[in-house]
């Protein structure tokens, strides 16, 4: 891999990678059984030139902000490289957000340029908030020939392949502004520097190296901090191959493992669980004798890999299982949300190591990762090289808030000094997560200090974001909480949102009201919905400016009502 100590910015490192491995395949884009694109590092460089020229011609310069809203595909990476090459600051936005949220974040980030897929652009232009859109240049990919692009340019029509001028950046300059939530109320734009990414990349690849010939399957969206690092920067600076899959359907994911002989993949817990369920079903379809043999082989594999993984032994013992994953898989990375230890153990017992990691956007990507020496299903691993963690205000059980100090920690939240000061204290990042470090230095997580949920698909949802959906109900007041914030059960499972309703005095909850709540709930994106409602008969405590004192209300609820009082919706 490139020695990243010698590089000052991502553009410089990526440019060097493209020159270093010209004939290696760097990118494959697959869609179901089809292959849409296959590029060597040389071809990638050539494909990026017209985009660089288009961006520079449109005035993108040192420090200009350019957003990408795209699904997982090769043009995402080519566009990101073109932005870094031109000295721009990349804003990777979640394509699954509503156009309303995307427009709000584009405005918050003051994006001058937007690179977007046609179907997403069409939705943005149809939004009632579109008149607020202020980016001066828009490049749209894959637009039909007759489509009205509302003033945007076609990505594919950028044709100037002359050599543009590289614009260098310094290590402490911002590289990306990454939004850690989709809130329109208070967007959290993490400003991450080139140093943050270069340091994170060195730390991760010291534990899980890439090299030419490694094939990384990218199925998480590239705007996600994990995939941006492990499915773009990491493989590129090592000359490895990234395979993009334009669908998240489990059957095509399974096909891709075999077709491309995948070495590494990162998944969120929901996908890992889907893979587990598929395997369990296949096992249950075996005859009784075959099942007995399989269990015996699993026991033998478990005994032989107790200290550390031995993929060669596991592939021999459990040949068919490994063949269904392509036969070249070295590890699955999982992060973004809580994963059941039983799922991790299931895969490890089959000889498929799952590197369980923990991190947050504010810390670059990962803070801890399991180094598999030995495998531990009950922890999220040890801090990455160069990262320190400490537990703040630990109780007698050793559990307290996890704080992190590392060169990978963001510089600040964009335009929010107050939130920055609350989150970055004396050089330590306050994660808002509750944890304990055991005698071997492994971090175990037990819940959250902050009022938020993380879904199995790795989405952060802040209750404040969705309260507006329940405004105007015929009740006195409403508030939304993360259940684990109210009832701190020291448990990472069972995250869900709860709507607290204070009815008008003397007005019991009627069926019609529940119907209205359900209807409002359904209008939210599925991962943002509340799981149930709770009746609360007292006035909410509020500040002088009438803001709800959430921590006080949560404590009052906790003292008087148990979680079993939540009525499911």
């Amino acid at each position, binding site marked *: 891999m490139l020695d990243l100590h010698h590089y000052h910015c991502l553009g410089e490192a990526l440019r060097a990678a493209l020159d270093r491995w010209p004939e290696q395949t760097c990118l494959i884009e697959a869609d*179901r059984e089809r292959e849409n694109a296959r590029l060597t590092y040389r071809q990638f460089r050539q494909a990026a030139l017209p985009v660089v020229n288009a961006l520079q011609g449109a005035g993108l310069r040192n420090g200009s902000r350019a957003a990408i809203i795209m*699904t997982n595909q090769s043009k995402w990476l080519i566009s990101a490289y073109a932005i870094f090459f031109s000295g721009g600051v990349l804003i990777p936005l979640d*394509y*699954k957000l*509503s156009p309303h949220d995307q427009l709000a974040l584009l405005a918050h980030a003051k994006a001058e340029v937007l690179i977007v897929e046609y*179907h*997403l652009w069409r939705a943005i232009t149809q939004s009632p908030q579109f008149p607020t859109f202020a980016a001066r240049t828009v490049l749209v990919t894959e637009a039909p020939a007759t489509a009205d692009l509302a003033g945007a340019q076609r990505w594919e029509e950028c044709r100037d392949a002359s050599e543009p001028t590289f614009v260098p950046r310094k290590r402490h300059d911002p590289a990306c502004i990454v939004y850690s939530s989709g809130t329109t109320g208070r967007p959290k734009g993490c400003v991450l520097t080139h140093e943050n990414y270069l340091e994170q990349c060195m730390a991760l690849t010291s534990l899980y190296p890439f090299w030419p010939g490694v094939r990384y399957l990218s199925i998480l969206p590239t705007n996600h901090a994990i995939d941006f690092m492990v499915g773009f920067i990491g493989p590129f600076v090592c000359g490895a191959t990234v395979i993009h899959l*334009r*669908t*998240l*359907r*489990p*059957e095509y994911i399974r096909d891709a493992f075999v077709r491309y002989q995948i070495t590494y993949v990162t998944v969120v817990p*929901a*996908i890992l669980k*889907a893979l587990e369920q598929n395997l369990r079903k296949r096992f249950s379809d075996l005859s009784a004798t075959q099942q007995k043999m399989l269990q015996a082989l699993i026991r033998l594999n478990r005994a032989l890999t107790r200290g550390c993984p031995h993929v060669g032994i596991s592939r021999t013992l459990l040949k068919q299982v490994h063949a269904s994953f392509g036969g070249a898989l070295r590890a699955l990375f999982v992060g973004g949300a809580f994963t059941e230890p039983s799922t991790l153990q299931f895969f490890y017992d089959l000889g498929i190591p799952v590197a369980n990691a923990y991190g947050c956007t504010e810390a670059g990507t990962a803070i801890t990762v399991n180094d598999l020496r030995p495998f531990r299903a009950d922890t999220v691993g040890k801090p990455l090289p160069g990262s320190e963690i400490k537990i703040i205000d630990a109780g007698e059980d050793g559990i307290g808030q996890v704080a992190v100090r590392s060169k990978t920690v963001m510089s600040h939240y964009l335009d929010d000094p107050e939130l920055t000061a609350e989150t970055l204290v004396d050089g330590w990042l306050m994660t808002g997560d509750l944890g304990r470090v055991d005698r071997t230095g492994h971090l175990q997580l037990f819940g959250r200090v902050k009022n938020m949920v993380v879904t*199995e*698909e790795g989405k952060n949802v802040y209750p404040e974001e969705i309260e507006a959906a329940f405004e105007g109900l015929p009740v006195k007041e409403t508030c939304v909480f993360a259940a684990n914030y109210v009832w701190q059960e020291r448990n990472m499972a069972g995250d869900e949102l709860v709507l607290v309703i204070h009815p008008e005095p003397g007005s019991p909850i009627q069926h019609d009201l529940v119907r209205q709540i*359900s209807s409002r709930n*359904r209008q939210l*994106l*599925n*991962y943002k*919905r509340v799981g149930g409602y709770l009746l609360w008969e007292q006035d909410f405590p509020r500040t002088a400016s009438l803001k709800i004192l959430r921590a006080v209300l949560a404590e009052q609820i906790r003292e008087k009502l148990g979680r079993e009082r939540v009525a499911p*919706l």
Partner: protein
Amino acid sequence: MTTLDQTTEEVLRLAAEHFKVPRAELNPADDFFTKLGINSLQALDLLTRLEQHFRIELPDYELQGVSDFRTLAKRIQSRL
């Protein structure tokens, strides 16, 4: 020519079959995430079944922002 009502009926029948719930329990306006107790990955699984049945291709993004059977049927109808 298949009508939207026929497409909706087929979507309901296939969803009931795929997730093993009685057809009579499903209605066009139902939220399939809530009614079937499924996550977005399982919904994508249903999309594959629908593609095979209607012999069309539905990109994953067609499911974005869709949560009821009727709207799903409309997305299919526009590609028939």
